[in-house]
Protein backbone atom coordinates (compact mmCIF):
# COMPACT_ATOMS: atom_id res chain seq x y z
CA UNK A 1 0.00 0.00 0.00
CA UNK A 2 1.18 3.48 -0.86
CA UNK A 3 -0.26 5.38 2.09
CA UNK A 4 2.27 6.44 4.67
CA UNK A 5 2.29 4.80 8.08
CA UNK A 6 1.66 8.05 9.96
CA UNK A 7 -1.69 8.86 8.32
CA UNK A 8 -2.84 5.25 8.51
CA UNK A 9 -4.53 4.29 11.80
CA UNK A 10 -2.75 1.51 13.67
CA UNK A 11 -3.84 -1.99 12.56
CA UNK A 12 -5.13 -4.06 15.48
CA UNK A 13 -5.49 -7.24 13.46
CA UNK A 14 -3.51 -8.23 10.38
CA UNK A 15 -4.08 -11.51 8.56
CA UNK A 16 -2.23 -12.65 5.47
CA UNK A 17 -2.98 -15.91 3.71
CA UNK A 18 -4.64 -17.12 6.91
CA UNK A 19 -5.75 -20.76 6.77
CA UNK A 20 -7.67 -23.11 9.00
CA UNK A 21 -7.99 -26.80 8.26
CA UNK A 22 -9.90 -29.43 10.21
CA UNK A 23 -8.52 -32.63 8.74
CA UNK A 24 -9.62 -32.54 5.12
CA UNK A 25 -12.07 -29.71 5.62
CA UNK A 26 -10.86 -26.23 4.69
CA UNK A 27 -12.69 -23.90 7.10
CA UNK A 28 -10.76 -20.75 6.22
CA UNK A 29 -8.93 -20.54 2.90
CA UNK A 30 -6.05 -18.07 2.59
CA UNK A 31 -7.86 -14.93 3.76
CA UNK A 32 -6.26 -11.47 3.97
CA UNK A 33 -7.74 -8.65 6.01
CA UNK A 34 -6.78 -5.83 8.30
CA UNK A 35 -8.78 -4.29 11.13
CA UNK A 36 -7.82 -0.74 12.08
CA UNK A 37 -8.02 0.85 15.47
CA UNK A 38 -11.40 2.34 16.29
CA UNK A 39 -13.37 0.85 13.43
CA UNK A 40 -16.27 -1.56 13.46
CA UNK A 41 -15.33 -4.40 11.16
CA UNK A 42 -17.74 -7.09 10.01
CA UNK A 43 -17.53 -10.63 8.72
CA UNK A 44 -20.68 -11.24 6.75
CA UNK A 45 -21.60 -14.60 5.32
CA UNK A 46 -23.89 -17.61 5.41
CA UNK A 47 -23.56 -20.33 8.05
CA UNK A 48 -20.45 -22.40 7.52
CA UNK A 49 -18.61 -19.69 5.60
CA UNK A 50 -15.69 -19.68 8.06
CA UNK A 51 -16.61 -16.62 10.15
CA UNK A 52 -16.50 -18.32 13.53
CA UNK A 53 -13.26 -20.17 12.73
CA UNK A 54 -11.68 -16.84 11.83
CA UNK A 55 -12.94 -15.27 15.05
CA UNK A 56 -11.59 -18.14 17.14
CA UNK A 57 -8.17 -17.73 15.58
CA UNK A 58 -8.23 -14.03 16.44
CA UNK A 59 -9.40 -14.86 19.97
CA UNK A 60 -6.42 -17.23 20.46
CA UNK A 61 -8.60 -20.31 20.98
CA UNK A 62 -7.83 -22.01 17.69
CA UNK A 63 -4.28 -22.12 16.32
CA UNK A 64 -4.03 -21.10 12.63
CA UNK A 65 -3.06 -23.89 10.22
CA UNK A 66 -1.13 -21.54 7.95
CA UNK A 67 -0.49 -17.94 6.95
CA UNK A 68 0.24 -15.12 9.36
CA UNK A 69 -1.95 -13.51 11.96
CA UNK A 70 -1.04 -10.67 14.31
CA UNK A 71 -3.44 -9.40 16.96
CA UNK A 72 -2.50 -6.11 18.64
CA UNK A 73 0.93 -6.69 17.13
CA UNK A 74 1.35 -10.07 18.86
CA UNK A 75 1.33 -13.74 17.87
CA UNK A 76 -1.89 -15.51 18.94
CA UNK A 77 -0.16 -18.82 19.61
CA UNK A 78 2.92 -17.82 21.61
CA UNK A 79 1.45 -14.68 23.22
CA UNK A 80 -2.12 -15.84 23.79
CA UNK A 81 -2.38 -14.70 27.41
CA UNK A 82 -1.00 -11.22 26.63
CA UNK A 83 -3.46 -10.80 23.75
CA UNK A 84 -6.40 -12.18 25.72
CA UNK A 85 -5.72 -9.71 28.53
CA UNK A 86 -6.48 -6.90 26.06
CA UNK A 87 -9.46 -8.23 24.14
CA UNK A 88 -13.07 -9.07 25.00
CA UNK A 89 -14.98 -11.99 23.49
CA UNK A 90 -18.73 -12.34 23.09
CA UNK A 91 -19.26 -15.92 21.84
CA UNK A 92 -22.12 -17.14 19.68
CA UNK A 93 -23.61 -19.06 22.60
CA UNK A 94 -23.74 -17.45 26.04
CA UNK A 95 -21.42 -19.39 28.34
CA UNK A 96 -22.19 -17.70 31.63
CA UNK A 97 -22.08 -19.45 34.99
CA UNK A 98 -25.84 -19.88 35.21
CA UNK A 99 -25.75 -21.04 38.85
CA UNK A 100 -24.22 -17.72 39.94
CA UNK A 101 -25.73 -14.26 40.12
CA UNK A 102 -25.19 -11.46 37.60
CA UNK A 103 -22.70 -9.72 39.90
CA UNK A 104 -20.87 -12.94 40.78
CA UNK A 105 -20.36 -13.70 37.10
CA UNK A 106 -18.62 -10.37 36.66
CA UNK A 107 -16.60 -10.70 39.89
CA UNK A 108 -15.39 -14.15 38.91
CA UNK A 109 -14.36 -12.95 35.47
CA UNK A 110 -12.53 -9.96 36.96
CA UNK A 111 -10.48 -12.44 39.00
CA UNK A 112 -9.50 -14.36 35.86
CA UNK A 113 -8.02 -11.10 34.59
CA UNK A 114 -6.25 -10.35 37.90
CA UNK A 115 -8.17 -7.09 38.21
CA UNK A 116 -7.82 -5.90 41.82
CA UNK A 117 -11.05 -5.70 43.77
CA UNK A 118 -10.94 -1.91 44.23
CA UNK A 119 -10.71 -1.46 40.46
CA UNK A 120 -13.16 -4.24 39.63
CA UNK A 121 -16.01 -3.20 41.92
CA UNK A 122 -16.68 0.28 40.51
CA UNK A 123 -16.19 -1.09 37.00
CA UNK A 124 -18.75 -3.83 37.64
CA UNK A 125 -21.29 -1.24 38.86
CA UNK A 126 -20.65 0.82 35.75
CA UNK A 127 -21.00 -2.19 33.43
CA UNK A 128 -24.24 -3.27 35.08
CA UNK A 129 -25.61 0.22 34.43
CA UNK A 130 -24.29 0.16 30.90
CA UNK A 131 -26.10 -3.06 30.00
CA UNK A 132 -29.16 -2.06 32.03
CA UNK A 133 -29.25 -4.98 34.41
CA UNK A 134 -29.48 -2.91 37.62
CA UNK A 135 -32.63 -4.71 38.75
CA UNK A 136 -31.18 -8.16 38.15
CA UNK A 137 -27.80 -7.67 39.75
CA UNK A 138 -28.38 -10.20 42.55
CA UNK A 139 -30.55 -12.61 40.65
CA UNK A 140 -29.21 -15.88 39.30
CA UNK A 141 -28.43 -15.99 35.60
CA UNK A 142 -30.43 -19.08 34.71
CA UNK A 143 -33.95 -17.53 34.72
CA UNK A 144 -32.91 -14.37 32.84
CA UNK A 145 -34.27 -13.76 29.32
CA UNK A 146 -32.11 -14.36 26.26
CA UNK A 147 -31.62 -10.61 25.78
CA UNK A 148 -30.50 -10.12 29.38
CA UNK A 149 -28.04 -13.02 29.20
CA UNK A 150 -26.61 -11.56 26.01
CA UNK A 151 -26.16 -8.16 27.64
CA UNK A 152 -24.47 -9.78 30.63
CA UNK A 153 -22.14 -11.64 28.26
CA UNK A 154 -21.28 -8.30 26.66
CA UNK A 155 -20.68 -6.72 30.09
CA UNK A 156 -18.45 -9.64 31.02
CA UNK A 157 -16.43 -9.20 27.82
CA UNK A 158 -15.84 -5.56 28.81
CA UNK A 159 -14.55 -6.34 32.32
CA UNK A 160 -10.91 -5.79 31.29
CA UNK A 161 -11.69 -2.56 29.44
CA UNK A 162 -10.58 -4.18 26.16
CA UNK A 163 -9.01 -2.44 23.16
CA UNK A 164 -10.75 -4.87 20.87
CA UNK A 165 -14.14 -6.55 21.24
CA UNK A 166 -14.95 -9.69 19.23
CA UNK A 167 -18.66 -10.41 18.78
CA UNK A 168 -19.74 -13.65 17.14
CA UNK A 169 -23.33 -13.25 15.94
CA UNK A 170 -24.22 -10.92 18.81
CA UNK A 171 -27.97 -10.79 18.17
CA UNK A 172 -28.79 -14.21 16.73
CA UNK A 173 -31.88 -15.59 18.43
CA UNK A 174 -32.95 -12.35 20.10
CA UNK A 175 -36.35 -10.70 19.66
CA UNK A 176 -36.41 -7.34 17.80
CA UNK A 177 -36.52 -5.24 20.95
CA UNK A 178 -33.60 -7.05 22.52
CA UNK A 179 -31.64 -6.75 19.26
CA UNK A 180 -32.12 -3.00 19.12
CA UNK A 181 -30.97 -2.66 22.71
CA UNK A 182 -27.80 -4.64 21.94
CA UNK A 183 -27.15 -2.55 18.81
CA UNK A 184 -27.61 0.61 20.82
CA UNK A 185 -24.99 -0.54 23.38
CA UNK A 186 -22.55 -1.59 20.67
CA UNK A 187 -22.99 1.74 18.94
CA UNK A 188 -22.07 3.50 22.18
CA UNK A 189 -18.96 1.38 22.55
CA UNK A 190 -17.96 2.28 19.03
CA UNK A 191 -18.38 5.97 19.87
CA UNK A 192 -16.09 5.51 22.85
CA UNK A 193 -13.42 4.22 20.47
CA UNK A 194 -13.60 0.49 21.16
CA UNK A 195 -12.65 -1.47 18.04
CA UNK A 196 -15.41 -3.94 17.21
CA UNK A 197 -15.15 -7.09 15.12
CA UNK A 198 -18.57 -8.57 14.39
CA UNK A 199 -19.70 -11.67 12.55
CA UNK A 200 -23.27 -11.76 11.38
CA UNK A 201 -25.58 -13.15 8.78
CA UNK A 202 -28.01 -10.30 9.32
CA UNK A 203 -27.60 -7.63 6.68
CA UNK A 204 -29.36 -4.97 8.71
CA UNK A 205 -26.94 -5.63 11.57
CA UNK A 206 -23.92 -5.25 9.32
CA UNK A 207 -25.37 -2.09 7.81
CA UNK A 208 -26.17 -0.57 11.20
CA UNK A 209 -22.88 -1.32 12.89
CA UNK A 210 -20.05 -1.88 10.46
CA UNK A 211 -17.79 0.78 8.98
CA UNK A 212 -16.17 -1.81 6.80
CA UNK A 213 -16.84 -5.44 6.12
CA UNK A 214 -15.76 -8.51 4.23
CA UNK A 215 -18.19 -11.00 2.75
CA UNK A 216 -17.13 -14.61 3.32
CA UNK A 217 -18.45 -17.52 1.34
CA UNK A 218 -17.15 -21.10 1.23
CA UNK A 219 -14.10 -20.32 3.42
CA UNK A 220 -12.93 -17.39 1.26
CA UNK A 221 -13.31 -13.63 1.38
CA UNK A 222 -15.24 -12.74 -1.74
CA UNK A 223 -15.38 -8.97 -1.39
CA UNK A 224 -14.51 -6.12 0.92
CA UNK A 225 -15.65 -2.53 1.48
CA UNK A 226 -17.94 -0.20 3.43
CA UNK A 227 -21.67 -0.94 3.21
CA UNK A 228 -22.37 2.05 0.84
CA UNK A 229 -19.32 1.05 -1.25
CA UNK A 230 -20.53 -2.48 -1.65
CA UNK A 231 -24.03 -1.34 -2.53
CA UNK A 232 -22.61 0.99 -5.17
CA UNK A 233 -20.37 -1.74 -6.53
CA UNK A 234 -22.78 -4.68 -6.60
CA UNK A 235 -26.19 -3.08 -6.78
CA UNK A 236 -27.94 0.04 -8.06
CA UNK A 237 -29.02 2.85 -5.79
CA UNK A 238 -32.65 1.75 -5.76
CA UNK A 239 -34.69 -1.37 -6.23
CA UNK A 240 -38.20 -1.47 -7.66
CA UNK A 241 -40.23 -4.42 -6.43
CA UNK A 242 -43.29 -5.29 -8.50
CA UNK A 243 -46.12 -7.75 -8.05
CA UNK A 244 -47.75 -8.56 -11.37
CA UNK A 245 -50.33 -10.74 -13.06
CA UNK A 246 -48.94 -13.51 -15.30
CA UNK A 247 -49.87 -11.49 -18.39
CA UNK A 248 -48.08 -8.43 -17.14
CA UNK A 249 -45.04 -10.56 -16.26
CA UNK A 250 -44.86 -11.78 -19.85
CA UNK A 251 -45.20 -8.28 -21.23
CA UNK A 252 -42.56 -6.95 -18.89
CA UNK A 253 -40.20 -9.78 -19.85
CA UNK A 254 -39.84 -8.38 -23.35
CA UNK A 255 -38.84 -4.87 -22.26
CA UNK A 256 -37.42 -5.25 -18.74
CA UNK A 257 -33.77 -5.35 -19.76
CA UNK A 258 -34.08 -1.89 -21.30
CA UNK A 259 -35.80 -0.49 -18.22
CA UNK A 260 -33.38 -1.59 -15.51
CA UNK A 261 -29.69 -2.43 -15.02
CA UNK A 262 -30.56 -5.89 -13.81
CA UNK A 263 -33.81 -7.80 -13.34
CA UNK A 264 -34.44 -10.66 -10.98
CA UNK A 265 -37.52 -12.87 -11.45
CA UNK A 266 -38.73 -14.33 -8.18
CA UNK A 267 -41.83 -16.53 -7.86
CA UNK A 268 -43.89 -13.80 -6.20
CA UNK A 269 -42.12 -10.61 -7.26
CA UNK A 270 -39.93 -9.02 -9.90
CA UNK A 271 -36.95 -6.95 -8.72
CA UNK A 272 -35.66 -4.21 -11.00
CA UNK A 273 -32.30 -2.75 -10.03
CA UNK A 274 -32.30 0.86 -11.13
CA UNK A 275 -30.89 4.27 -10.23
CA UNK A 276 -34.32 5.91 -9.86
CA UNK A 277 -37.16 3.59 -9.05
CA UNK A 278 -39.90 6.14 -9.62
CA UNK A 279 -38.75 6.87 -13.17
CA UNK A 280 -38.58 3.18 -14.00
CA UNK A 281 -42.05 2.65 -12.56
CA UNK A 282 -43.43 5.55 -14.61
CA UNK A 283 -41.87 4.05 -17.76
CA UNK A 284 -43.48 0.71 -17.03
CA UNK A 285 -46.90 2.28 -16.50
CA UNK A 286 -46.48 4.28 -19.72
CA UNK A 287 -45.89 1.11 -21.69
CA UNK A 288 -49.28 -0.10 -20.50
CA UNK A 289 -48.21 -2.76 -18.02
CA UNK A 290 -50.53 -3.00 -15.00
CA UNK A 291 -48.99 -3.68 -11.57
CA UNK A 292 -50.74 -5.11 -8.49
CA UNK A 293 -48.31 -3.31 -6.26
CA UNK A 294 -45.06 -1.42 -6.66
CA UNK A 295 -42.48 -0.56 -4.02
CA UNK A 296 -39.43 1.62 -4.52
CA UNK A 297 -36.76 1.04 -1.90
CA UNK A 298 -33.15 1.85 -1.28
CA UNK A 299 -30.79 -1.02 -2.17
CA UNK A 300 -29.46 -2.80 0.91
CA UNK A 301 -26.58 -5.06 1.77
CA UNK A 302 -29.00 -7.93 1.37
CA UNK A 303 -29.15 -7.20 -2.34
CA UNK A 304 -25.37 -7.17 -2.45
CA UNK A 305 -25.12 -10.36 -0.49
CA UNK A 306 -27.63 -12.24 -2.62
CA UNK A 307 -25.98 -10.98 -5.79
CA UNK A 308 -22.64 -12.33 -4.63
CA UNK A 309 -23.57 -15.57 -2.93
CA UNK A 310 -26.70 -16.38 -4.93
CA UNK A 311 -30.21 -17.11 -3.79
CA UNK A 312 -30.01 -20.86 -3.51
CA UNK A 313 -29.63 -22.15 0.01
CA UNK A 314 -25.99 -22.72 0.91
CA UNK A 315 -25.52 -25.38 3.57
Amino acid at each position, binding site marked *: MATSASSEPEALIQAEGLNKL*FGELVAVDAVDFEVRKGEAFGFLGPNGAGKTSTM*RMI*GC*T*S*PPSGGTLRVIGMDPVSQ*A*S*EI*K*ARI*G*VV*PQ*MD*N*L*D*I*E*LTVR*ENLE*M*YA*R*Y*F*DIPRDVANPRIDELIDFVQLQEKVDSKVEPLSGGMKRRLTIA*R*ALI*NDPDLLLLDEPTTGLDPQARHLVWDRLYRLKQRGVTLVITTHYMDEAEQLCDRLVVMDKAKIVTEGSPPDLIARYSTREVLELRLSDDAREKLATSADDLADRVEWLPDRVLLYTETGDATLAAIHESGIQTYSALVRRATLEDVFLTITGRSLIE
Partner: protein
Amino acid sequence: MNATKIVRRNSLVHWRAWRSSFFLSVLSPVMFLSAMGLGLGSLVEEEQAFGGVDYLAFFATGMLAASCMQAGAFSGTYPVMNKIVWQKNYDAVLASPLNVRDIFLGEVSWSAVMLTQLATPFFMIMAFAGIFDSPLAILAIPVAVLVGTSCAAVIMAYTATLHTDEAYTWLFRFVVTPLFLLSGTFFPIDQLPAWGRVVAHLTPLFHGVELVRQLTIYDLDPSAIWHLGYLVALLGVGVVVGIRNFERRLLP
Protein backbone atom coordinates in the same frame (compact mmCIF):
# COMPACT_ATOMS: atom_id res chain seq x y z
CA MET B 1 -1.49 -19.44 40.73
CA ASN B 2 -4.19 -19.38 38.06
CA ALA B 3 -5.50 -22.87 38.88
CA THR B 4 -6.76 -21.55 42.23
CA LYS B 5 -9.15 -19.28 40.32
CA ILE B 6 -10.80 -22.39 38.89
CA VAL B 7 -10.97 -23.97 42.34
CA ARG B 8 -12.62 -20.85 43.66
CA ARG B 9 -15.14 -20.75 40.83
CA ASN B 10 -16.00 -24.42 41.26
CA SER B 11 -16.42 -24.22 45.00
CA LEU B 12 -18.80 -21.28 44.65
CA VAL B 13 -20.85 -23.01 41.95
CA HIS B 14 -20.69 -26.31 43.84
CA TRP B 15 -22.15 -24.90 47.02
CA ARG B 16 -24.85 -23.12 45.01
CA ALA B 17 -25.88 -26.04 42.89
CA TRP B 18 -25.29 -28.94 45.23
CA ARG B 19 -26.14 -27.46 48.59
CA SER B 20 -27.75 -30.69 49.69
CA SER B 21 -25.14 -33.03 48.24
CA PHE B 22 -22.55 -32.49 50.94
CA PHE B 23 -24.94 -33.96 53.46
CA LEU B 24 -25.71 -36.84 51.12
CA SER B 25 -22.09 -37.52 50.32
CA VAL B 26 -21.34 -38.00 54.02
CA LEU B 27 -24.63 -39.65 54.83
CA SER B 28 -24.49 -42.40 52.23
CA PRO B 29 -21.16 -43.92 53.36
CA VAL B 30 -22.35 -43.70 56.95
CA MET B 31 -25.49 -45.58 56.01
CA PHE B 32 -23.37 -48.12 54.16
CA LEU B 33 -21.12 -48.43 57.18
CA SER B 34 -23.94 -49.08 59.59
CA ALA B 35 -25.76 -51.49 57.32
CA MET B 36 -22.75 -53.48 56.16
CA GLY B 37 -20.36 -53.05 59.06
CA LEU B 38 -22.74 -53.39 61.93
CA GLY B 39 -25.49 -55.43 60.28
CA LEU B 40 -23.50 -57.83 58.13
CA GLY B 41 -20.45 -57.57 60.39
CA SER B 42 -22.35 -59.02 63.33
CA LEU B 43 -22.75 -62.22 61.33
CA VAL B 44 -19.07 -62.40 60.37
CA GLU B 45 -17.05 -63.69 63.25
CA GLU B 46 -13.91 -65.08 61.66
CA GLU B 47 -11.56 -62.25 62.53
CA GLN B 48 -8.40 -63.93 61.21
CA ALA B 49 -9.90 -63.75 57.69
CA PHE B 50 -9.72 -59.93 57.99
CA GLY B 51 -6.22 -59.81 59.43
CA GLY B 52 -7.22 -59.96 63.05
CA VAL B 53 -9.66 -57.03 63.05
CA ASP B 54 -13.42 -57.08 63.19
CA TYR B 55 -15.41 -56.71 60.01
CA LEU B 56 -16.54 -53.15 60.76
CA ALA B 57 -12.92 -51.96 60.95
CA PHE B 58 -12.00 -53.88 57.80
CA PHE B 59 -14.96 -52.61 55.84
CA ALA B 60 -14.92 -49.00 57.08
CA THR B 61 -11.27 -48.44 56.14
CA GLY B 62 -11.87 -49.89 52.68
CA MET B 63 -14.95 -47.77 52.30
CA LEU B 64 -13.01 -44.57 52.98
CA ALA B 65 -10.88 -45.17 49.88
CA ALA B 66 -13.78 -46.56 47.85
CA SER B 67 -16.12 -43.66 48.44
CA CYS B 68 -13.36 -41.21 47.48
CA MET B 69 -12.78 -43.18 44.30
CA GLN B 70 -16.47 -43.06 43.44
CA ALA B 71 -16.82 -39.36 44.16
CA GLY B 72 -13.58 -38.61 42.32
CA ALA B 73 -14.66 -40.64 39.29
CA PHE B 74 -18.01 -38.87 39.23
CA SER B 75 -16.38 -35.44 39.44
CA GLY B 76 -14.58 -36.22 36.17
CA THR B 77 -17.79 -37.02 34.29
CA TYR B 78 -20.95 -34.88 34.10
CA PRO B 79 -19.58 -31.75 35.79
CA VAL B 80 -16.67 -31.64 33.31
CA MET B 81 -18.77 -32.59 30.29
CA ASN B 82 -21.14 -29.79 31.24
CA LYS B 83 -18.30 -27.28 31.08
CA ILE B 84 -16.99 -28.66 27.77
CA VAL B 85 -20.16 -29.53 25.87
CA TRP B 86 -23.36 -28.14 27.37
CA GLN B 87 -22.62 -24.85 29.11
CA LYS B 88 -19.20 -24.34 27.50
CA ASN B 89 -17.87 -22.58 30.60
CA TYR B 90 -14.30 -23.48 29.65
CA ASP B 91 -14.63 -21.41 26.48
CA ALA B 92 -15.38 -18.43 28.71
CA VAL B 93 -12.33 -19.18 30.87
CA LEU B 94 -10.15 -19.53 27.76
CA ALA B 95 -11.28 -16.11 26.53
CA SER B 96 -9.51 -14.70 29.61
CA PRO B 97 -5.73 -14.88 30.10
CA LEU B 98 -6.05 -18.36 31.65
CA ASN B 99 -4.98 -21.37 29.58
CA VAL B 100 -5.84 -25.06 29.27
CA ARG B 101 -3.22 -26.10 31.81
CA ASP B 102 -4.74 -23.71 34.37
CA ILE B 103 -8.14 -25.26 33.74
CA PHE B 104 -6.99 -28.86 34.05
CA LEU B 105 -4.83 -28.32 37.11
CA GLY B 106 -7.66 -26.28 38.62
CA GLU B 107 -10.14 -29.09 38.09
CA VAL B 108 -7.78 -31.69 39.58
CA SER B 109 -7.09 -29.43 42.58
CA TRP B 110 -10.80 -28.86 43.00
CA SER B 111 -11.36 -32.64 43.09
CA ALA B 112 -8.76 -32.88 45.85
CA VAL B 113 -10.47 -30.11 47.85
CA MET B 114 -13.89 -31.67 47.42
CA LEU B 115 -12.61 -35.13 48.37
CA THR B 116 -10.90 -33.77 51.48
CA GLN B 117 -14.27 -32.37 52.51
CA LEU B 118 -15.71 -35.86 52.04
CA ALA B 119 -12.90 -37.92 53.62
CA THR B 120 -12.44 -35.80 56.75
CA PRO B 121 -15.88 -36.29 58.34
CA PHE B 122 -15.76 -39.96 57.34
CA PHE B 123 -12.39 -40.28 59.08
CA MET B 124 -13.71 -38.53 62.18
CA ILE B 125 -16.62 -40.95 62.44
CA MET B 126 -14.20 -43.88 62.27
CA ALA B 127 -11.95 -42.27 64.87
CA PHE B 128 -14.89 -41.77 67.24
CA ALA B 129 -15.93 -45.37 66.68
CA GLY B 130 -12.48 -46.37 67.92
CA ILE B 131 -11.58 -48.26 64.77
CA PHE B 132 -7.88 -47.29 64.97
CA ASP B 133 -5.54 -45.64 67.42
CA SER B 134 -2.29 -45.16 65.47
CA PRO B 135 -1.28 -41.49 64.94
CA LEU B 136 -0.26 -42.48 61.40
CA ALA B 137 -3.96 -43.04 60.69
CA ILE B 138 -4.47 -39.35 59.85
CA LEU B 139 -2.44 -39.99 56.66
CA ALA B 140 -5.33 -42.13 55.46
CA ILE B 141 -7.10 -38.89 54.52
CA PRO B 142 -4.53 -37.73 51.94
CA VAL B 143 -4.20 -41.27 50.63
CA ALA B 144 -7.96 -41.59 50.10
CA VAL B 145 -7.96 -38.15 48.45
CA LEU B 146 -5.10 -39.26 46.18
CA VAL B 147 -7.09 -42.33 45.09
CA GLY B 148 -10.09 -40.15 44.17
CA THR B 149 -8.04 -37.41 42.53
CA SER B 150 -6.07 -39.77 40.31
CA CYS B 151 -9.32 -41.40 39.16
CA ALA B 152 -10.78 -37.93 38.57
CA ALA B 153 -7.79 -36.92 36.42
CA VAL B 154 -7.96 -40.08 34.29
CA ILE B 155 -11.72 -39.79 33.77
CA MET B 156 -11.51 -36.06 32.96
CA ALA B 157 -8.93 -36.96 30.31
CA TYR B 158 -11.45 -39.47 28.93
CA THR B 159 -14.34 -36.99 29.13
CA ALA B 160 -12.43 -34.61 26.87
CA THR B 161 -12.73 -37.20 24.08
CA LEU B 162 -16.53 -37.61 24.39
CA HIS B 163 -19.37 -35.74 22.70
CA THR B 164 -22.31 -37.20 24.62
CA ASP B 165 -22.82 -38.71 28.07
CA GLU B 166 -23.84 -42.16 26.79
CA ALA B 167 -20.49 -43.74 27.63
CA TYR B 168 -20.89 -42.94 31.32
CA THR B 169 -23.59 -45.55 31.78
CA TRP B 170 -21.17 -48.32 30.93
CA LEU B 171 -18.25 -46.59 32.59
CA PHE B 172 -20.04 -46.79 35.91
CA ARG B 173 -21.62 -50.18 35.29
CA PHE B 174 -18.57 -51.99 33.95
CA VAL B 175 -15.61 -50.10 35.39
CA VAL B 176 -16.39 -48.14 38.54
CA THR B 177 -18.81 -50.56 40.18
CA PRO B 178 -16.70 -53.72 39.58
CA LEU B 179 -13.68 -51.82 40.92
CA PHE B 180 -15.68 -50.93 43.95
CA LEU B 181 -16.72 -54.53 44.51
CA LEU B 182 -13.49 -56.34 43.66
CA SER B 183 -10.71 -54.17 45.06
CA GLY B 184 -10.81 -55.58 48.56
CA THR B 185 -13.31 -53.15 50.02
CA PHE B 186 -15.87 -55.75 51.08
CA PHE B 187 -13.65 -58.84 51.39
CA PRO B 188 -9.92 -59.60 51.17
CA ILE B 189 -8.77 -60.22 47.61
CA ASP B 190 -7.31 -63.61 48.70
CA GLN B 191 -10.88 -64.81 48.29
CA LEU B 192 -10.68 -64.10 44.55
CA PRO B 193 -9.45 -66.66 42.00
CA ALA B 194 -5.85 -66.16 40.83
CA TRP B 195 -6.76 -64.07 37.77
CA GLY B 196 -8.99 -61.90 39.96
CA ARG B 197 -6.03 -61.15 42.25
CA VAL B 198 -3.95 -60.12 39.24
CA VAL B 199 -6.72 -57.79 38.06
CA ALA B 200 -7.12 -56.35 41.54
CA HIS B 201 -3.41 -55.47 41.61
CA LEU B 202 -3.86 -53.42 38.45
CA THR B 203 -6.65 -51.29 39.88
CA PRO B 204 -6.07 -48.02 41.72
CA LEU B 205 -8.63 -48.75 44.37
CA PHE B 206 -6.87 -51.92 45.53
CA HIS B 207 -3.69 -49.94 46.17
CA GLY B 208 -5.62 -47.20 47.90
CA VAL B 209 -7.49 -49.63 50.13
CA GLU B 210 -4.29 -51.47 51.06
CA LEU B 211 -2.48 -48.27 51.88
CA VAL B 212 -5.34 -46.91 53.98
CA ARG B 213 -5.51 -50.19 55.95
CA GLN B 214 -1.76 -50.25 56.54
CA LEU B 215 -1.99 -46.76 57.98
CA THR B 216 -5.02 -47.48 60.14
CA ILE B 217 -5.65 -51.08 61.18
CA TYR B 218 -2.63 -53.09 59.97
CA ASP B 219 1.09 -52.52 60.30
CA LEU B 220 2.91 -50.42 57.74
CA ASP B 221 4.71 -52.68 55.28
CA PRO B 222 7.38 -51.95 52.61
CA SER B 223 4.71 -52.64 49.98
CA ALA B 224 3.32 -49.21 50.94
CA ILE B 225 5.95 -47.61 48.67
CA TRP B 226 4.70 -49.58 45.69
CA HIS B 227 1.05 -48.75 46.48
CA LEU B 228 1.83 -45.06 46.84
CA GLY B 229 4.01 -45.11 43.72
CA TYR B 230 1.18 -46.62 41.69
CA LEU B 231 -1.28 -43.91 42.76
CA VAL B 232 1.15 -41.04 42.16
CA ALA B 233 2.03 -42.46 38.74
CA LEU B 234 -1.66 -42.76 37.83
CA LEU B 235 -2.24 -39.15 38.81
CA GLY B 236 0.78 -38.12 36.74
CA VAL B 237 -0.45 -39.99 33.66
CA GLY B 238 -3.97 -38.58 34.13
CA VAL B 239 -2.63 -35.01 34.28
CA VAL B 240 -0.31 -35.33 31.27
CA VAL B 241 -2.87 -37.08 29.05
CA GLY B 242 -5.64 -34.85 30.40
CA ILE B 243 -3.89 -31.59 29.51
CA ARG B 244 -3.15 -32.95 26.04
CA ASN B 245 -6.76 -34.09 25.51
CA PHE B 246 -8.16 -30.81 26.85
CA GLU B 247 -5.89 -28.89 24.48
CA ARG B 248 -7.09 -30.91 21.49
CA ARG B 249 -10.69 -30.47 22.49
CA LEU B 250 -10.79 -26.86 23.66
CA LEU B 251 -8.29 -25.33 21.22
CA PRO B 252 -9.36 -27.03 17.96
